[in-house]
């Protein structure tokens, strides 16, 4: 049988998704179900003088109204679960409903539970909250200034963390002082709204007789949600079932443990009836976590002939009003440690300030920290190339960690597992016809057309990760994964995994792996995930970890099953196990092909157990828990080609070439899909997206009328290519590919636009690169030129 590994099978999950037969949380309807709606603060910062819900309680259909006071002692605060060490980390309390003070526009103040969604929503308008508005601060740097309004009184200067990484600040300082070339830039990595297509939702059901509580919710990590909910609600874990049904995108925003879902569980238990809550889109913009929001002061030092000698980064990360579940790890571990990117940089010094503001909490968002690192590095590398008059491709080539130096230890203490960065770059240049394109660009300029070519080379830390390291960096959990492979008596297979894919396609890729290992048709393998009552403990789907970590567990479990099957087959065939060949789904006695037992026959015998080898347990299943020895480090080079129209500032994407190396590829179709989606989200940051607050903390981009997401019509075809450098870390040699596109594409596009604008002397503009920004910059450049000429 040809191996399924590497085959572009269509996704098993798609038929149900595209024909409307999938069950999302909001599709769940239970008898006697109630509906919740949450009243959110319209103010970014205010003292709550009083909450009067008496009128709402009397409104038609209303069953109960909860305020912060009702929860005291009954629903614990919302925890932060990534306690980064050596960072002077503060974790101010986050009550599920604010009772004294609201800290961002969107902070929950009360929850109505009613007989219908409409009744719950209507009743919100009958709750009278007496607010005393207080001054707000939305900008992280301003929040650090003396006298800035405090988000939490217990956090002076609004500074929740201060963290450093690198191999010596002084050495870096010296290298910068002695450098032939120094490039300095202040960069802003703007705030983004993840905007999963499915907003958050939760349904909870409590059985008062058994004390069992089930919570269905939009989660990337139901097992983590179970542990945290058990703590907050005081329901023992064995009585708590958490299910992530179909989840319509998360991008990090469905990692956190939020107040809202905990409240739904609380209310279901309190009222003894099922409760459902579904976020509205405008709520999603305000009350679901945001991403990025960094200001970075970057210094890159190098020689005249293009060798980088040092990098210094000082970043201020806006973390919003409360520290979300994984928030502290994003601007530190996931950002600071990867600032050297694919380059051999002798000296690195990173300093990060994490700051609270009166804004929506900021969390992981596709790429989480790594896009921020890649952006600053790739921007600075381009500026450096321009400064010394070197082709940006050549500059990258000169600084890449060479292929023979892997495993490579970075100045920030990571060990890159494997890589061949130059090969990916060359492949991209070739796909592009780089030299031809440069000529075309030159010709076009003569005719007053402004083409730009932007490169972005990246390496990503993903496949999170060794649990020992998780512990060392303060992640309050392990990062291993699990799988149970169960072959049924008929030879059909269910696989239960602890991770929780929600669009990434592992139901297909994992089935391919198992089908290969067990020699069964891929249609005979069903992957079960997302339900704590069915699946073994696992840490969830984020950090591009499901394939590199989860498949490790999967392969080990499947191999254990195959081993047991071999022993049973040997017994059936009266041969020694080592004399059997396993091929095409059957064990054959070597040299006697007609003496064979198929895996299905073996499975049946395993369950009948009439005649098993002495001492063998019946049934055919195995489980495995796999803790990787290292992270994995996918890499690649992406190139964007754009045309900028100076008169209108419009950017047109002409081409997009992505060369990614995700290690061994299980399913190229799915890898392409992940790259496409990621690239598009990253382009969104470069050109269109940006959450904007006014100075009072009102979100000005709180709907899809204002917050611009990429649309199909804005985009060119995405040309995907791959190189394959297997990871030595895990059994299958795979790396992650869920975030690479987002990490790589943002700087590729910005670099391309800056390249297009080079004739105007423009070398940096802040994202998103909207027409007005470009038009203004061009106009100012022309005025400068005019002025100089005059």
């Amino acid at each position, binding site marked *: 049988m040809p191996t399924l590994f590497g085959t572009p099978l269509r996704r098993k999950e798609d038929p149900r998704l595209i024909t409307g037969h999938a069950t999302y949380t909001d599709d769940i309807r239970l008898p006697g179900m109630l509906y919740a709606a949450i009243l959110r603060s319209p103010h970014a910062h205010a003292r709550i003088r009083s909450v009067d819900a008496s009128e709402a309680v009397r409104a038609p259909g209303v069953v109960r109204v909860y305020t912060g006071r009702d929860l005291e002692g009954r629903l614990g605060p919302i925890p932060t679960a990534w306690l980064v060490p050596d960072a002077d980390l503060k974790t101010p309390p986050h009550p599920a409903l604010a009772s004294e003070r609201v800290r961002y526009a969107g902070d929950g103040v009360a929850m109505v539970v009613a007989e219908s*969604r409409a009744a719950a*929503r209507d009743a919100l308008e009958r709750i009278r909250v007496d607010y005393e508005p207080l001054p707000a601060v939305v900008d992280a740097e301003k929040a650090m200034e003396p006298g800035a309004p405090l988000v939490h009184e217990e956090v002076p200067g609004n500074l929740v963390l201060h963290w450093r990484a690198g191999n010596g600040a002084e050495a870096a300082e010296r290298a910068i002082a002695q450098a032939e070339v120094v490039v300095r830039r202040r960069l802003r990595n703007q705030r983004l709204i993840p905007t999963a297509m499915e907003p958050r939702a939760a349904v909870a059901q409590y059985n008062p007789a058994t004390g069992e509580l089930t919570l269905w919710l939009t989660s990337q990590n139901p097992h983590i949600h179970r542990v945290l909910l058990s703590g907050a609600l005081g329901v023992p874990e064995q009585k708590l079932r958490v299910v992530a049904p179909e989840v319509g995108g998360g991008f990090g925003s469905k990692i956190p443990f939020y107040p809202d879902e905990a409240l739904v569980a609380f209310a279901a238990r309190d009222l003894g009836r099922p409760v459902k809550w579904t976020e509205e889109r405008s709520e999603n913009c305000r009350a679901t976590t945001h991403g990025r929001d960094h200001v970075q002061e970057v210094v890159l030092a190098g020689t005249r002939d293009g060798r980088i000698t040092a990098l210094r980064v000082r970043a201020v990360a806006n973390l919003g009003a409360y520290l979300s579940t994984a928030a502290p790890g994003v601007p530190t571990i996931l950002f600071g440690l990867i600032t050297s990117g694919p380059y051999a940089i002798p000296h690195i010094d990173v300093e990060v300030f994490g700051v609270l503001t009166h804004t929506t909490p900021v969390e992981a968002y596709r790429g989480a920290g790594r896009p921020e690192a890649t952006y600053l590095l790739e921007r600075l590398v381009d500026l450096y190339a321009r400064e010394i008059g070197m082709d940006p491709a050549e500059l990258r080539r000169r600084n890449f960690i060479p292929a023979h130096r892997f495993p490579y230890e970075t100045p920030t203490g990571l060990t890159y597992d494997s890589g061949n960065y130059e090969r990916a770059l060359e492949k991209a240049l070739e796909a592009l016809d780089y030299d031809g394109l440069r000529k075309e660009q030159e010709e076009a300029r003569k005719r007053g057309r402004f083409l730009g070519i932007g490169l972005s080379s990246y390496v990503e830390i993903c496949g999170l990760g060794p649990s020992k390291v998780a512990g060392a960096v303060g992640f309050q959990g392990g990062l291993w994964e699990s799988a149970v492979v169960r072959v049924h008596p008929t030879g059909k297979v269910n696989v239960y995994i602890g991770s929780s894919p929600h669009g990434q396609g592992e139901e297909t890729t994992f089935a391919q792996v198992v089908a290969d290992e067990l020699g069964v048709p891929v249609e005979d393998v069903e992957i079960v995930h997302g339900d704590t009552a069915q699946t073994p403990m696992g840490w969830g789907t984020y950090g591009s970890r499901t394939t590199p970590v989860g498949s490790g567990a999967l392969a080990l479990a499947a191999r254990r099953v195959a081993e047991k099957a071999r022993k049973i087959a040997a017994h059936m065939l009266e041969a020694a196990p080592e004399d059997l060949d396993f091929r095409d789904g059957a064990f054959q006695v070597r040299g006697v092909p007609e003496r064979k037992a198929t895996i299905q026959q073996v499975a049946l015998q395993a369950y009948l157990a009439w005649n098993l080898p002495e001492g063998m347990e019946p049934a055919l299943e195995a489980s495995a828990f796999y803790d990787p020895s290292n992270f994995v480090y996918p890499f690649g080079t992406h190139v964007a080609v754009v045309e900028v129209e100076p*008169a209108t500032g419009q950017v047109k994407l002409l081409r997009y070439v992505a060369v990614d190396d995700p290690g061994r590829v299980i399913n190229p179709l799915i890898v392409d899909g992940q790259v496409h989606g990621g690239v598009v989200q990253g382009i969104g940051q470069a050109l269109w997206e940006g959450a*904007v607050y006014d100075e009072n903390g009102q979100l000005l981009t709180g709907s899809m*009328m204002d*917050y*611009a997401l990429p*649309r199909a019509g804005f985009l060119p075809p995405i040309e995907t290519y791959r190189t394959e450098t297997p990871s030595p870390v895990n059994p299958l040699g795979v790396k992650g590919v869920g975030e690479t596109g987002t990490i790589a594409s943002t700087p590729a596009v910005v670099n391309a636009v800056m390249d297009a604008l080079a004739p105007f002397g423009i070398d940096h503009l802040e994202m998103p690169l909207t*027409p*007005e920004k470009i038009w203004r910059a061009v106009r100012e450049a022309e005025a400068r030129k005019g002025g100089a000429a005059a």
Partner: protein
Amino acid sequence: MIPAAFDYARASSLEEALRLLREAGPEAKLLAGGQSLLPMMKLRLAEPPLLVDIGGLAELSGIRLEANELAIAALTPHAELAGSAQVAEAFPLLARAAAGIGDLQVRNLGTIGGNLVHADPGSDLPAVVLALEGRIVLRGPAGERVVPAEAFFLGPLTTAIEPGEILTEVRFPLLEGRTGTAYVKHPHPASGYAVVGVAAVARLAPDGRVEEARLGVTGVGLHAYRARAAEAALRGRRPDASAIEEAVAHATDGVEVNGDLYASEEFRAHLCRHHMAQALREAVAAAA
């Protein structure tokens, strides 16, 4: 996204719709395609106590070619404007503008009547109706009246329609002579509405000079407007680059230009001039 409670009545005739409106008072709203009204209700920016659904009224459907005009009934959806051979033949700019509205679902449901009465400052069709000098036919308790496009748009979400009136159709005089048209739009990347939209109609004299230019502009001011000063600057001139440049210098004369997060007043005015020039060039080329 749950609207406040409201009553719903489905009118079976125009007369019944008028009666229902009259009885319900000024707070009641007509429902056509629902593509502007329902989002407003879901955001609770509008909370009408009663919706009178005219969506099924055959009397308000269809495109009729008459002696010297094309009458487009109120319920004609954008998709039909975009796909109709009659419209494409008579007014290519109308087809073009309609094809650029929202997405397919919006175009299948949204109607010309609703688009004009809603009068969003960034709606596309008002600019076209202005440039084509459409005449808007309103039926009210006191009978029928006809309002020229230029007198119809009064402000953001505000028109000359009175409570109790129903827009029944728009009559467009057919174009004569060597006439070309164009519609050029800079869509907002999020909403798709016009940050700037310019509809141009240019009629050339046999010698190539501009006999008449009509310019409808949307997205730029509080409501769609005719750029009369720019039109005047072109009249009688050869539509060459310098004439067009001089004309578009007047693109926003007398208009309070909108500024927002996406485009400041200054940039929007610039885009207006830029796209007006482009629309004029295209219209002139189509006429020639």
